[in-house]
C-alpha cells in the first residue's frame, strides 16, 4: 500500500521499527518526503522510491544504499547546518531539511561526474604528482581543488549546540547489544556486576532484529527486566584507552546533541558482531548493488521493498536468508548465483541504477537489484586498542582476535567466532560471568584502597578463574574480488586497480599502500574495506593475507563530534567579594588567569592622579596569601627566600624574593609576623597556587620534620589597598583598636584590628604604589561592606576606586618590578636588580649555588630604569635595546606614560655592561624606528628617596558606620533574609533536586598528624565524617586535615573549642577559621548522585562513597571537597571550595542539573547538618 507513485513501502513486518499510526513530513533537496516515526532519513526516502543519495568523492559517481546502516558510505547527507549525517542511521524528524552533499549543481546532474571519464588519469597519487610543481601555483591549486572537496558545509554562523559529559564506573562495559552482548550482560548482572550495555543502533538485538525478531524481542525484554544493566542505544564505544578508560558517545539525547561518557570499566566485553563486507567487481558501487544484510534490514526493519527484480550472489546463510526475505516481500528473484558452488559475478551494468547483471557463467540478467553475501569483517578495533594483534584465519576468511590483549578485555559473539544462536549465547554467558568475576577482583582492590567507606571489613570476592570457552569458526570461502576490478574503498573512491598500481609504484606493504591510495582512511575508517584492501594488496604482491597483515585500528571507532569531545565547558573563574560592585560601576574587566578583575573604571591616568593627590582604593583580593604557623616557620622562610628572616619581630613585615633551584626569580611578596609562631605570607596573584605547592613540596619531601602548617587564605580575605596621602585619614575613620599614627604603625609593619565593625582584619602598611598606603585584609564575607564603607566615609577626601591598570602605572613610576613581566624564565636574582636582598652568607637557600656562581661571573642581564630622551615616546613593551653595533642587548619589560611626570618611563633588562646609570641606549621600536633612551639612577622614576610613603599626618577618630553585613559567594535572589548577620537568599524550593548556598555555616579548619592524638580526639580521619557531641560535624578532609562545621555565627565558639581540644592533646596542631574563605553548597535530592557524575570523575556509588564519606577531587575542574551527609535518607552532598569560585561551582551544578529539574533553594533560618 503506497502513498505515492513509486512507493516501496511494504505491509507490516514482524520486526519493523516504524510506527505506522502516524506520519510526518521532512524535505529532501527542497521536496517534501513522508516518513513514519522510526524511519531513518534514507529508509523514508527509499520508501518513496529514491535510489541515489550522494555522489562519490573523486569520480562523483551516483551512490545509493549499500549497507543500510550507520556505515553506509553512500548515505551521508546534510541536515540543516549539520554536514556528514549518516542518513541510513539518523532518524527522520518532522521538518528536517535534508540535502545531498558533494553534488553540484544537483544530485541528478553533477558536473564533476566528468571525472568519471578522466578516471584513468585520476589514479592513486594523481594529486600528489600533478599539483606539485611549480610551487608558486600552490595557492591556485588550492582554490581549484577546494571546489572538489568532499563532504557537506558548515556555516560559521551555526549556533552553539549543547553537548554533555558524564562519568561512569561500571563493573562491566559491553560494546555491542546483539544476542552475544545481551547474553553477556545478563550473565554479568546476575553475577552481581553493574553493567553498561552500549549499542550503536537504535534498538538492541543486533542481527536477530531481522533474522529472528521474536528472539530479539525476548532477549531485549529480559535485559530490561534485569536489575543492574544500564542500556545505552544509539551510542557507541568510540575508544578504549589505558586501564579501561572508555569513551562512549551517546547521540541525540533530548537535552543534548551528543554526550561523551567517560567510563572507567573494570572489565570490557567486546561484542560488536560482524560487519558484512562488500564484494569487489566492476560496477559494485552502482545504486542497486546491496549487501544481503542491507536487504534484510530494509525489508524487516523499515518495511521497504529494496527493488523489483533481483539477482543474488550468495556464499553464506545471510545471502540465503536475503533470498527468502526478497521473495516474501514480493521481489522477483531472477537468479541466485551460489558462490559456494563456484558461481561468480563479472560486472553490473547501469549508471544511476543497476540495469543488468553479467555473471561468470556468461548469463546477463536484467535486474534493478544485485545482492551480495560474500563474507564478513570482524571489527576488532577495541581489542586492538587494548593491545591485541588480530590474526588472519583462511578458514573463516577474516581476521580473528589474537587473544593476547589486556586481561581486563574479553571478546564474544561474531568477533570471537561462529556458532548457532545457542552456541553464541552460551559463549557470551560464560564471558559475561567471567567478566563479572574479574570486575569483582578489581572492585575489591579499589574499595580496599579508598578511605571513604565505612570501617567494615571487605569480603574477598569468591570464585576462581574460569577457563574461557572458545568458539570455533565455520568455513567461509575467501571471496574478495571477482575477475574484474571495482571499488574497494567507497568513501575514498579507491579501486582495486589503484591498489595494484600503488604496489607497482613500490608501496608494497599494507601500511604504505593505505597511505598512498588513502584506502581505509575515509569516514568509514576501514570498517567495510580493510579486508578487501588487504586481500587486493596481497594479490598484487603475491603474498598471503596473513603475511600482508592488517593495518592498525586506532580510536575513534566512529566519528565523534568535536562538540561532544569538548563537552560542557569547565573553565573555573574566580571573583572577589566586590566583583558585583565592580560590574555595577562599569569596571572594564581584565581576565588574569582564573580571576576576573577591574582593569579601570574610568581614565586610568585620572585614577593614578587621584592616588597621588588624594586617596584611592583598589581590590587586590587575588594577591596570594598563605597562613603559616609553627615554630619552624623562620627556617622555612630562610630556605625559600633569598633574604634573611630569623630576626623578624612580631608586627613587622619584610619583602622577600623566591628563586627556583636554578636561581631564576620565581615569585616575590611580603611576609609579616602576626604572632609568636604565626606568619602571613603574600605572593603574586598569578603565583599563589604555584608558591603553595612549592612550599608544600619543600616541607613534605625535604623537611617533613619541620613543624609548619600552611593554609592558603587567598580568598579568605577580601584585600583592599588604600593608597594616597589621605589614606591614613580614611583608614583611621573606620579602624578601632589600632594606633595608626606614623610612629605607632610604621612603614613595613602589620597589625590586626577591627575595620568598619569587622573583627579580625589584618592591616599591612606597605606600598606598591609609593604612596602612604594600607593594605586591608578583611574576612571575605564582609569585603563588600568594608569597600562600601571606605567609599562612603572617604567622599570628602576624594576617594575613588582604581583598577589594575592604574596600579601598574603607579608601581612603574615607583620602579617596583613584577615577576613574570620584568623578569622571565631566565632571570636570575642578580639580574632582577634586587642585589640588596640576596644574602649569600646564609648556609642554604633554594637556588643559592647558581647565585653564587652568577655573582662570581658577573654575567646575565640587569634590570634598570630607562627613560627615552623624547618623553613623548612610549616604547612598546618587548621593544629591543641595541648596542652601538646594532646587536640586541636587552629589551623594554614595562613602559607607560607617567601621569605624574608627564613623560614616558620604562623598566628594561640590559646587558650588565650597559646597566650603569646614565648609559645612552638605542631602543628599536616594532615600527623599525630607533629612539635614544637613558639608564636612570634608580628603578623608581617618582620619589626614589621614598618620602611620600612616610608622610606624617595625624590619624582621625573612628566614626560610626553601618552594621556589618556578611554575604556568601553566590548572588542571592531578590528576596533575602538575615541570619546571624548574613544576608541570605530567602526563596525556598521543594523540587526533587535542590541546590543551596550554605556558606554561612561556621567552618573551622584543624591540622595535625594524621595518626596522632588530635586525630584521636576528633574521632575521625581522612575520608570519613562524624557528628561530634557538640552538634558540630567533623569532616576528615585530608590526611591530618579536618574541617569542622557548625551553625551560623558560631565560628568563634567552635574555634576556641577546637583550640582547647588541640591544646589538650599536646600535639603540634593548627586551628583556623575558614568560614569566610570557603564556599559551601548543599546539593540534595535523589538525582544528586547523577548530577555529580556529570561533573566529577570519582566513583560515587554507595559502595565506594557511602553516607558520611568525605573526599577531595575535581568537580567541574575545580578542586572541591565532596561530603556526603544524607538527609533522612535523601542523598545529600556538601560541596566545599575556595570562596572565590563559589559562584562558578554553583552555576556549573545548575547547568549539569538542568536535565533533572534542579531548583535553587534558599537557606532555612536554622540550617541543620
Amino acid at each position, binding site marked *: 500500500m503506497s502513498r505515492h507513485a513509486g512507493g516501496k513501502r511494504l505491509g507490516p513486518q514482524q520486526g519493523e521499527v516504524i510506527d505506522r499510526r502516524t506520519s510526518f513530513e521532512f524535505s529532501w533537496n527542497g521536496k517534501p518526503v513522508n516518513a513514519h516515526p522510526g524511519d531513518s532519513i534514507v529508509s523514508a526516502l527509499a520508501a518513496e522510491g529514491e535510489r541515489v543519495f550522494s555522489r562519490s568523492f573523486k569520480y562523483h559517481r551516483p551512490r545509493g544504499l549499500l549497507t543500510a546502516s550507520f556505515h553506509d558510505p553512500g548515505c551521508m547527507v546534510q541536515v540543516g547546518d549539520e554536514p556528514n549525517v549518516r542518513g541510513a542511521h539518523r532518524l527522520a524528524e518532522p521538518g528536517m531539511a535534508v540535502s545531498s552533499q558533494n553534488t553540484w549543481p544537483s544530485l541528478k546532474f553533477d558536473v564533476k561526474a566528468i571525472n568519471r571519464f578522466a578516471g584513468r588519469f585520476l589514479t592513486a597519487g594523481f594529486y600528489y604528482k600533478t599539483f606539485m610543481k611549480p610551487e608558486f601555483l600552490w595557492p591556485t591549486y588550492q582554490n581549484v581543488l577546494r571546489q572538489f572537496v568532499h563532504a557537506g558545509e558548515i556555516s560559521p554562523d551555526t549556533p552553539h549546540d549543547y553537548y554533555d559529559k558524564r562519568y561512569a564506573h561500571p563493573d562491566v562495559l559491553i560494546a555491542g547489544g546483539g544476542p552475544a552482548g545481551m547474553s553477556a550482560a545478563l550473565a554479568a548482572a546476575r553475577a552481581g556486576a553493574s553493567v553498561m550495555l552500549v549499542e550503536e543502533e537504535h534498538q538492541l538485538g543486533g542481527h536477530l532484529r531481522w533474522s529472528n525478531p521474536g528472539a530479539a524481542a525476548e532477549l531485549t525484554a529480559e535485559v530490561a527486566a534485569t536489575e543492574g544493566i544500564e542500556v545505552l542505544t544509539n551510542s557507541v564505544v568510540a575508544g578504549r*584507552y*589505558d*586501564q579501561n*578508560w572508555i569513551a562512549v558517545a551517546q547521540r541525540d539525547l533530548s537535552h543534548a546533541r551528543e554526550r561523551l561518557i567517560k567510563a*572507567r570499566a573494570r572489565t570490557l566485553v567486546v561484542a560488536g558482531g560482524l560487519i558484512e563486507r562488500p564484494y569487489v567487481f566492476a560496477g559494485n558501487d552502482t545504486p542497486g548493488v546491496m549487501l544481503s544484510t542491507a536487504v534484510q534490514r530494509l525489508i524487516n526493519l523499515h518495511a521497504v521493498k529494496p527493488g523489483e527484480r533481483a539477482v543474488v550472489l550468495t556464499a553464506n546463510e545471510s545471502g540465503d536468508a536475503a533470498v527468502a526475505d526478497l521473495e516474501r516481500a514480493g521481489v522477483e528473484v531472477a537468479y541466485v548465483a551460489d558462490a559456494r558452488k563456484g558461481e561468480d559475478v563479472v560486472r553490473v551494468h547501469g549508471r544511476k541504477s543497476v540495469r543488468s547483471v553479467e555473471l561468470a557463467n556468461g548469463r546477463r540478467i536484467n535486474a534493478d537489484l544485485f545482492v551480495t553475501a560474500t563474507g564478513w569483517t570482524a571489527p576488532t578495533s577495541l581489542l586492538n586498542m587494548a593491545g591485541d594483534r588480530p590474526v588472519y584465519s583462511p578458514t573463516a576468511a577474516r581476521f580473528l582476535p589474537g587473544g593476547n590483549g589486556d586481561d581486563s578485555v574479553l571478546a564474544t559473539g561474531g568477533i570471537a567466532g561462529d556458532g548457532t544462536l545457542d552456541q553464541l549465547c552460551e559463549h557470551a554467558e560464560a564471558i559475561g560471568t567471567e567478566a563479572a568475576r574479574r570486575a569483582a577482583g578489581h572492585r575489591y582492590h*579499589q574499595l580496599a*584502597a*579508598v*578511605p*571513604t567507606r565505612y570501617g567494615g571489613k571487605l569480603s574477598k570476592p569468591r570464585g576462581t578463574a574460569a577457563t574461557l570457552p572458545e568458539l570455533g569458526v565455520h568455513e567461509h570461502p575467501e571471496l574478495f574480488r571477482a575477475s574484474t576490478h571495482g571499488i574497494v574503498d567507497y568513501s575514498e573512491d579507491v579501486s582495486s586497480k589503484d591498489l595494484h598500481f600503488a604496489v607497482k609504484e613500490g608501496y608494497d606493504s599494507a601500511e604504505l599502500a593505505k597511505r598512498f591510495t588513502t584506502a581505509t582512511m575515509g569516514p568509514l575508517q576501514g570498517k567495510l574495506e580493510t579486508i578487501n584492501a588487504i586481500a587486493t594488496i596481497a594479490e598484487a604482491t603475491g603474498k598471503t593475507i596473513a603475511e600482508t597483515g592488517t593495518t592498525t585500528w586506532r580510536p575513534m571507532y566512529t566519528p565523534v563530534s568535536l562538540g561532544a569531545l569538548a563537552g560542557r565547558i569547565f573553565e573555573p573563574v574566580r571573583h572577589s567579594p566586590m566583583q558585583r560592585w565592580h560590574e555595577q560601576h562599569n569596571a572594564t574587566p581584565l581576565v588574569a588567569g582564573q580571576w576576573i578583575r577591574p582593569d579601570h573604571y574610568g581614565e586610568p591616568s585620572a585614577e593614578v592622579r587621584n592616588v597621588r593627590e588624594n586617596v584611592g582604593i583598589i581590590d587586590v583580593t587575588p594577591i596570594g596569601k598563605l597562613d603559616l604557623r609553627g615554630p619552624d616557620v623562620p627556617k622555612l622562610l630562610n630556605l625559600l627566600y633569598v633574604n634573611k628572616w630569623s630576626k623578624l619581630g612580631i608586627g613587622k613585615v619584610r619583602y622577600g624574593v623566591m628563586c627556583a*633551584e*636554578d636561581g631564576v626569580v620565581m615569585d616575590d611578596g611580603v611576609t609579616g609576623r602576626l604572632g609568636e609562631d604565626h606568619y602571613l605570607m603574600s605572593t603574586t596573584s598569578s603565583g599563589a597556587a604555584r608558591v603553595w*605547592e612549592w612550599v*608544600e*613540596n619543600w616541607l*613534605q*619531601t*625535604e623537611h617533613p620534620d619541620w613543624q609548619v602548617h600552611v593554609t592558603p587564605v587567598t580568598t579568605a580575605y577580601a584585600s583592599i589597598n588604600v593608597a594616597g596621602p589621605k589614606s591614613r585619614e580614611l583608614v583611621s575613620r573606620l579602624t578601632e583598636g589600632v594606633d595608626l599614627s606614623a610612629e605607632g604603625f610604621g612603614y613595613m609593619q602589620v597589625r590586626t584590628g577591627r575595620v568598619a565593625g569587622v573583627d579580625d582584619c589584618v592591616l599591612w602598611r606597605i606600598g606598591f604604589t609609593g604612596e602612604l598606603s594600607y593594605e586591608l585584609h578583611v574576612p571575605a564575607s564582609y569585603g563588600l561592606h568594608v569597600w562600601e564603607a571606605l567609599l562612603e566615609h572617604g567622599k570628602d577626601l576624594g576617594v575613588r576606586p582604581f583598577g589594575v591598570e592604574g596600579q601598574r602605572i603607579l608601581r612603574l613610576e615607583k620602579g617596583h618590578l613584577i615577576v613574570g613581566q620584568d623578569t622571565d624564565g631566565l632571570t636570575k636574582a642578580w639580574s632582577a636588580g634586587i642585589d640588596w636582598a640576596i644574602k649569600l652568607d646564609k*648556609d*642554604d637557600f633554594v637556588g*643559592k*649555588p*647558581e647565585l653564587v*656562581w652568577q655573582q662570581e661571573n658577573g654575567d646575565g642581564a640587569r634590570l634598570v630604569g630607562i627613560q627615552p630622551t623624547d618623553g613623548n615616546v612610549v616604547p612598546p613593551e618587548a621593544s629591543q635595546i641595541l648596542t652601538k653595533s646594532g646587536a640586541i642587548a636587552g629589551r623594554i619589560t614595562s613602559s607607560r606614560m607617567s601621569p605624574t611626570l608627564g613623560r614616558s618611563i620604562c623598566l628594561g633588562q640590559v646587558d650588565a655592561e650597559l646597566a650603569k646609570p646614565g648609559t645612552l641606549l638605542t631602543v628599536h621600536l616594532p615600527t623599525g624606528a630607533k629612539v635614544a633612551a637613558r639608564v636612570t639612577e634608580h628603578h623608581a622614576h617618582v620619589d626614589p628617596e621614598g618620602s611620600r610613603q612616610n608622610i606624617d599626618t595625624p590619624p582621625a577618630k573612628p566614626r560610626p558606620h553601618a552594621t556589618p553585613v556578611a554575604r556568601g559567594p553566590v548572588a542571592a535572589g531578590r528576596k533575602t533574609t538575615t541570619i546571624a548577620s548574613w544576608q541570605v537568599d530567602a526563596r525556598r524550593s521543594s523540587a526533587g533536586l535542590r541546590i543551596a548556598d550554605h556558606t554561612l555555616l561556621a567552618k573551622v579548619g584543624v591540622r595535625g598528624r594524621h595518626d596522632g592524638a588530635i586525630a584521636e580526639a576528633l574521632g575521625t580521619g*581522612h*575520608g570519613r565524617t562524624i557528628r561530634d557531641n557538640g552538634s558540630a560535624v567533623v569532616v576528615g578532609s*585530608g*590526611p591530618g586535615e579536618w574541617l569542622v562545621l557548625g551553625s551560623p555565627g558560631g565560628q568563634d565558639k567552635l574555634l576556641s573549642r577546637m583550640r582547647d581540644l588541640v591544646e589538650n592533646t599536646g600535639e603540634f596542631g593548627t586551628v583556623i577559621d575558614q568560614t569566610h574563605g570557603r564556599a559551601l553548597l548543599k546539593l540534595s535530592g535523589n538525582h544528586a548522585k547523577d548530577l555529580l557524575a556529570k561533573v566529577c*570523575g*570519582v566513583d560515587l556509588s554507595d559502595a565506594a562513597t557511602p553516607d558520611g564519606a568525605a*573526599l*577531595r*577531587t*575535581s568537580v567541574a575542574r575545580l*578542586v572541591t571537597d565532596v561530603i556526603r551527609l544524607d538527609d533522612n535518607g535523601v542523598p545529600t552532598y556538601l560541596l566545599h571550595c575556595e570562596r572565590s569560585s563559589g559562584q562558578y561551582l554553583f552555576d556549573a551544578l545548575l547547568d549539569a542539573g538542568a536535565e533533572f529539574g534542579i531548583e535553587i533553594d534558599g537557606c532555612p533560618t536554622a540550617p541543620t547538618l
Partner: protein
Amino acid sequence: MIQLPCPWCGPRNASEFTHHGEVTPRPDVGTATPEEWRRYLYFRQNANGWVDENWYHTAGCRRFIRVRRHTTSNETEATR
C-alpha cells in the same frame, strides 16, 4: 587516561595530579660543583622501564607521593 594509586585517596585519574618528574636527590649545597648541581637540575634517566617519580595530588589530598611507574606499560605502584 591512566589512574594513579594515591596511597591516601585510592586510585584517581592522573589529571588530578601534578607530575614532578623523576626523583632526583638534592646535592649538598655547600660542596656541590656546578656540574653536580646542573646534573641535579637538568639531567634525568628517562628510562624505558621502571622509574621512581614524584607526583603531587593537587586536586585531592595535596600530598606529595612517590610513584614507581613503568614508562611503557604505565603499571604503577605508590608509596607515601
